[in-house]
């Protein structure tokens, strides 16, 4: 693995607190994921690909923005791997790069309707924007 890849892998493991080597590849995380059908890479693949250092495809993937942060995979993993935390770490690595915000304040007015709770906007900003 190149040193750049190695550094990124270590950073993801450090900020997520996830140890991908605990995974026993049972697939329960992906089996329970409510966004499974919408994802190109699924929760178990995030764990495997971070473990092997194959992180570039994840950084570019739309899958980062499909995770609902519902903590189903965190709750149901029999090994306590907590895949959602790794998905979040990869998403942060993507949106922390300058110009990579997924959502800007200018995008918001077009997305609103009069019933939408503030919570939806705040949450989306927290997840899509740095």
């Amino acid at each position, binding site marked *: 693995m190149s040193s750049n890849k190695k550094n990124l892998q270590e950073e993801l493991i*450090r*900020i*997520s*607190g996830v140890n991908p080597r605990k995974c026993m590849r049972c697939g329960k995380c992906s089996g329970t994921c*409510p*966004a499974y059908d*919408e994802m190109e890479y699924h929760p178990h693949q995030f764990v495997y690909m971070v473990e092997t250092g194959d992180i570039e495809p994840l950084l570019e993937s739309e899958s980062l*923005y*499909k995770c*609902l*942060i*519902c*903590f*189903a995979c*965190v*709750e149901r993993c029999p090994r306590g791997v*907590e895949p*959602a*935390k790794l998905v*979040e*770490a990869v998403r*942060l690595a993507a949106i922390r790069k300058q110009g990579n915000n*997924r*959502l800007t304040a200018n995008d918001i007015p077009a*997305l609103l309707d009069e*019933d*939408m*709770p*503030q*919570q*939806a*906007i*705040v*949450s*989306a*900003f*927290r*997840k*899509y924007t740095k």
Partner: protein
Amino acid sequence: MKFSYFPGCTLKNKAKILDVYARKCAEVLGAELEEIENWQCCGGVFTTAKDEVATKLSSVRILKEALRKETDLVTVCSACHNVVKQTNYAIQTDKEFAGKVNRYMAEDEYNGETKIYHYLELLRDVIGFDKVKEKVVNSLNGKKVAAYYGCLLLRPNSVMRMDDPENPSIIEDLIRAIGGEAIVYPARNECCGGYVRLESPELANKKSNNVFNSAMNAGAEVIVTACPLCKYNLEKSGCEIPVVYITELLADALGVKEDADEQ
């Protein structure tokens, strides 16, 4: 019984009734909710990354203020509860994170001392559902009510510790206490689609449809939730039965709904 109370941004705006009924019912049940002064938004969702510190400080300020007033903290919104509780847990269990947080703070150190109750836990653990039952003046008369937990009240259970995350009963027990028939259905702890509604409304529709169809197939006449975003998502996705807040149902049963509506 006096508690610090954190309503959060949505309860001051699109979900005012969740807040108004929560206060009114607490008053009837003998709990005094004192709103935290100058609070800020909790952030909506908890960022699990350990190096995210600034985004969690507004929650820390809420927790510190409750400690300063020597009171436990009560929340109502599922999302606020999840964020504040996860922040508190991170401070309790991650010394490095706690150190960084405290270096931002001007006053005393905070080490996760504040006890946090969700409004449902206040009803169950402090007031007691038997006491709630005694105060009912307008029973639900066997109305078929489906409890919708969603994600944030229950997960991750290692932190939330409210109920069994796969087979919860706290809302069903409340429904029974106020005279309703609790409808138990498979999707009650599945996700509504959450904030993804902004970007992928079709995904949110799919998830919400799964939830309300599951409840309706089980015979529900009404769905009850503690989360403004769950309510919004279910309604936007075309739920054919009413979706109401836990506090609205409770206010109705306690006979204070009209008083609260006048305020």
